[in-house]
């Protein structure tokens, strides 16, 4: 099991706990969607898995080589071209100069951006930037890929395409993916398993399996989306005063 979370808790200073008693296991090669309303600590949980923050209680097991991370905005370095951004990730991993170039081109090809390698981030559209960011996180070559609402800022058309794209790349590379989102449809579209996180404190309250039938039968997928949405709204309603 690449990721095991046991009774994980996190609070900032003396405030109320952001995460409380989070339990989950994520298998190798699995695609898990982490779903929750705003302020449920999804991003905090992801940051803890990435090692950017430390939990205040509980135990956590992640691959020893760490995780690749993809942010909500592409966070590409504006002084580097698309290819150089990917090469930097390879360089910081210790890949030699000649090999970097070849690998970066392969990754650009993988995200269908072979022709845009010499463009700078500001010359790319939002969707292209996210694909470069995806290629960069794949350049890290970690088994575990953490994604923090990577498509939230994109337009609907681009997002739909990137869902297909991500699914394809996941199947080609066999990565373990934890995908944080507040979008039920996105969670059902992408995840093999959807974990619903409650809000304040964040805790895994329910999970659903998404089968291959859901990928092709829109009716079935719609039904599941409805069930999950109802449960999510119930969770939100709890906070009404």
């Amino acid at each position, binding site marked *: 099991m690449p990721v095991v979370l046991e009774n994980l808790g996190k609070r900032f200073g003396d405030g109320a706990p952001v995460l409380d008693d989070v339990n989950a296991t994520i298998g190798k090669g699995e695609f898990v969607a982490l779903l929750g309303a705003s302020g449920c600590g999804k991003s905090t949980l992801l940051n803890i898995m990435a090692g950017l923050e430390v939990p205040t209680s509980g135990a956590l097991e992640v691959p020893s080589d760490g995780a690749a991370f993809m942010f909500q905005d592409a*966070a590409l370095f504006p002084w580097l071209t698309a290819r150089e951004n990917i090469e930097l990730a390879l360089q*910081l991993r210790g890949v030699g100069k000649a090999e970097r170039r070849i690998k970066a081109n392969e990754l650009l090809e993988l995200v269908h951006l072979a022709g845009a390698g010499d463009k700078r981030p500001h010359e790319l559209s939002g969707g292209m930037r996210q694909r470069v960011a995806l290629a960069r996180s794949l350049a890290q070559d970690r088994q575990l890929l953490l994604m923090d609402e990577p498509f939230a800022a994109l337009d*609907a058309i681009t997002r739909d*395409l990137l869902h297909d794209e991500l699914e*394809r790349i996941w199947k080609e590379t066999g990565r373990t993916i934890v995908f944080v989102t507040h979008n039920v449809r996105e969670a059902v579209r992408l995840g093999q398993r959807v974990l619903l996180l409650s809000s304040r404190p964040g805790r895994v309250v329910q999970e659903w399996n998404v089968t291959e039938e859901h*990928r092709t*039968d829109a009716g079935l997928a*719609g039904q599941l989306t409805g069930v999950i*949405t*109802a449960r999510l709204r119930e969770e939100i309603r709890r906070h009404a005063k």
Partner: protein
Amino acid sequence: MRNNSSPVADTPEATETPVSAGSTGGHNSAGSTGGHEETRKVHAALTRSSTGSADLRELESGLDSLQSDAVRKARVDWSRILLPVAAVVVLIIIWQAYVSLGLKRRDLVPGPLDVAGQFGTLWAEGALQEAVWTSLQRGLVGFLISVAIATPIGLLLAQVAPLRRAFGPLISGLQVLPSVAWVPAAIIWFGLTDATVYFVVFMGAIPSIINGLISGVDQIPPQYRSVGTVLGASRLQMAVQIVLPAALPGYLGGLKQGWAFSWRSLMAAEIIAVGGTIGFGLGSMLNQGRDLADMTIVMSAILLILAVGILIELLVFGPIEKRLLQRRGLLAGSTR
């Protein structure tokens, strides 16, 4: 069926597709808008929307070209050259007109032609070339050494919090202190030598370059560091490969100011410290004009000091800054 229609239907961006049993919703965009009792409305994005890798590649490349700007061709913009030249010509005409009115004695306020004549004389003597060359050489050498000293110090202060807390206020104070204040001390320590001039230049340029670099580092979006951490950058790699390039626009601002301070400090030092082994620079020329009470020499020296400043900006900093900002997509909409 209440369950699956309600969460989907009230989202404005949802593209609803009527789906009959067994069909794959994503591609079914036929215009039969509901009506049928068995039809369930489902969001198109719930299932795969492309038919395969080739189709996906084509769709993406279509979308990419729709969303990218067409490349605009850069043309030589003559107004960039003609407008500043016109501004100078207008100022000279005003100057000449004022002198022609004869309100002041001609030796106190010489006209453009008198100054141009003095320029010719100084050129023929070789004094003009010598002064410009001496000052420019000192200014550039002093500036470059300042950059070499200030950059590591600035990076260290920006990255190590206790150091910054300790020395930050002192450096800011040094930037405010006019570097001319160091001239007497420098003369006492180093005598009338080049060392005096360089010392004053360093004291002028180094604090402002350090401060420019620090403020450049302060303005880096925090996410760049997160990315660096996630990518596994060491402390040194973070400083050299992420922090320094990210801070470059602010650093360049510091360099510009550092150059301005070294040039000013140099002139001040040259005016005050004359003689000894200190050569003949533009400041010395200015001072000589005062001693001779020759306003045309004074004006010539002032204009030369100004001209060097403008040329360095136009030929060195301007193009570097423009290129730097353009590559990062930061120049759109500016009046540059």
